[in-house]
């Protein structure tokens, strides 16, 4: 199977309700992460790097920041004569709370696309995966459906996680929805990336609608009986963001060289909307330890275990530890912040003190003035 025969189909609002503050003014897909990225950059880059030329992003609400970020798709090389990025707002003004009706609502777009296969994908997963391997796996096994999974602990935000019982040859024996998830117990967690033939997808969606079966997870569960369902393991680094804590933990994971080397593989770069920021400037009074810092920043204070996004200013005498600071925020002089997630364009005035905790980082909303 050639990857240019695959349509990418990303849900922009995966688990929006699990990160309510971060996603209050935007979709999950456009949540800022890792200093200069938005969540969807990873999936769009994966698709683009794997030769997928046509990507649709299903958006339900609050998608202005998403549109602003992905634009025409040119940052991902998805805006060419033979490649395309389309944002799919609710068709006919109708929104649905289940995937079956949502996908059916987009049938006009899906059927119009010339690709034979669809890769459905969530927007809350940070990973660097070569989908051409998945396509090869799918064709080699003559699979009808391939579910991509990771083996690991299921993040706490997944209320109805899908786990898989897999035979030696990779075929899925059984699909479990919402299994008992013991803490610190590894599961084969299918996080929502699915490769399927387009016609089969639409046929199953229509059948499901006629049976009034609106739960896509049940649909996947039932498909094991009638179809060749295979499971492909994503063995790489894979963070599924399902809570503020997951979000925090992922950002902190970036301090590990192994994680950075894997996620930001120069052969499969992660693309993002370009901003012309100057290199970051460290002043004479700066003290920075174990931190990720994007361009366009001016750092005059002390920063430790932080992810600092584009265009952030950290004043003299400021002490930041364990913070995630999003773009263009200004942190005044002699401030003291610990375990704080600070959204875009926030102003922390001189001398302020904010303390969260390891297990409960506090969140400061976009454009706030503290």
């Amino acid at each position, binding site marked *: 199977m050639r990857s240019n025969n695959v349509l990418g189909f990303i849900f922009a609002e995966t688990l929006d309700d699990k990160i309510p503050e971060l996603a209050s003014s935007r979709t999950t897909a456009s949540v800022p992460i*890792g*200093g*200069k990225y938005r969540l969807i950059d990873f999936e769009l880059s994966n698709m683009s790097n794997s030769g997928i030329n046509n990507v649709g992003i299903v958006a339900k609400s609050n998608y202005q920041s998403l549109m602003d970020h992905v634009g025409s798709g040119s940052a991902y090389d998805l805006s060419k004569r033979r490649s395309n990025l389309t944002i799919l707002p609710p068709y006919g003004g109708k929104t649905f709370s289940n995937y079956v009706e949502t996908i059916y609502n987009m049938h006009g777009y899906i059927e119009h696309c010339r690709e034979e296969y669809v890769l459905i994908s969530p927007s809350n997963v940070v990973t660097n995966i070569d989908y051409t391997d998945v396509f090869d796996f799918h064709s080699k096994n003559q699979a009808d459906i391939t579910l991509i999974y990771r083996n690991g602990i299921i993040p706490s935000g997944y209320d109805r996680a899908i786990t898989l019982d897999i035979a030696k040859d990779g075929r899925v024996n059984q699909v479990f929805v919402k299994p008992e998830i013991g803490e610190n117990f590894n599961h084969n967690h299918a996080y929502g990336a699915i490769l399927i033939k387009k016609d089969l997808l639409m046929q199953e969606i229509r059948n499901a609608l006629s049976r009034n079966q609106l739960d896509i997870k049940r649909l996947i569960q039932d498909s094991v009986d009638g179809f060749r369902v295979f499971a492909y393991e994503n063995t790489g680094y894979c963070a599924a963001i399902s809570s503020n804590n997951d979000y925090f933990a992922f950002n902190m994971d*970036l*301090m590990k*060289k192994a994680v*950075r080397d894997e*996620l*930001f593989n120069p052969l499969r*770069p*992660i*693309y993002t909307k*370009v901003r*012309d920021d*100057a*290199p*970051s*400037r*460290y*002043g*004479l009074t*700066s*003290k*920075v*330890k*174990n*931190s*990720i*810092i*994007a*361009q366009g920043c001016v750092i005059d204070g002390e920063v430790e275990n932080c*992810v*600092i*996004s584009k265009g952030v200013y950290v004043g003299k005498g400021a002490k930041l530890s364990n913070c995630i600071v999003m773009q263009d925020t200004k942190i005044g002089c002699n401030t003291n912040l610990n375990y704080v997630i600070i959204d875009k364009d926030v102003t922390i005035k001189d001398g302020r003190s904010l303390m969260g905790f390891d297990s409960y980082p506090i969140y400061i909303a976009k454009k706030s003035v503290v």
Partner: protein
Amino acid sequence: MVPKKEVVAMLLAGGQGSRLGVLTQKLAKPAVPFGGKYRIIDFPLSNCVNSGIEAVGILTQYQPLILNEYIGNGQPWDLDGMHSGVNCLSPYQAVDGADWYSGTANAIYQNINYIERYNPEYVVILSGDHIYKMDYNKMLDFHKEKNAACTIAVIDVPLEEASRFGILNTYENGEIYEFDEKPEHPKSTNASMGIYIFSWKELKKYLTEDDSKDGSSHDFGKDVLPAMLSAGEKMFAYPFEGYWKDVGTIDSLWEANMDLLDPKVTLDLKDIYSRNPMMPPHYIADEAVIQNSLVADGCNVYGNLEFSIIFSGVTIGKNATINSSIIMPGVVIEEGANVQFAIVAENTVIGKNAQIGKKPEDVSDRNDWGITVIGANTKIGENAVIEPKTMIDNDTEVMANEK
């Protein structure tokens, strides 16, 4: 048909820039990296775009590959539109023969066709080796107001340095009456910045005349401008205030980079556009110490930085110390290496505990010390010592005992 443009900019980017030594051995001078993520040409190009100039011709001749690739379709500078564009103009073969560009004026003369396509009123001539931010519109307004044939931007330089520059002597109203190239006893401190605005009709006439003149070196400064002056054309000096620096030598290139770290210097990098490497934000490790430095995306810093400019994708190993240096993209500085007052070109590896350059004992005595330059794709071995002021070639390997 190409729509008319009031102004066309022509950027002279063909010179060898031999005074930059190994840095321009395989690279045209305007493509030399600057300021942590830029190349020199980003400054005049961004100035053009920010001044609303939509047609830019870049005259290339010497080692144009990297420069051509970098300019590409002009997208980073918004010069890829329906009504805007940038073109790299190399010497070409025509019916009546083929010639290299024999001088700055000749380069423009050979591209009269390019300029005429836009049917412009004015032509801006720029150099590709200056660092400054300028609104050419203001200069153009001045040019129109004075009804000049030619306007030359000038900057006030200290009297003791004036003999290094081309000095323009003017009447009180700014009209030029004399050119004084590197005068021993300067009469004024108005140094030419190498930025000219011409009314196109006049320029075309003088370029054509110059081309048929025997013995002409076809240079703006030496031939065309003096010819215009002696013919009595109205020529004015436009005073520019702000940061401007010629970065044609190793010392001045180093100084201009260091100026970015000086809070007293007025140059900011806002609205300077460039191609951006697709790299993640940089990482500063626990043991790193960074003071007064610029760091770009994709770097991993485990060592110490002081007064330095670090380009994208650079790795600074543990206990390595970088002081007052410029480290270009992709360089790896291994553990314990010590780089001082140096420029290290792209993708070079500095081995463990190597010593590159040295901090001068007395910085004020400018004749007594110099910058060490390490070429691109070079490997400096473990414990090697590279003396101050030396220049190491591109693509070489230097082991410890070789010096």
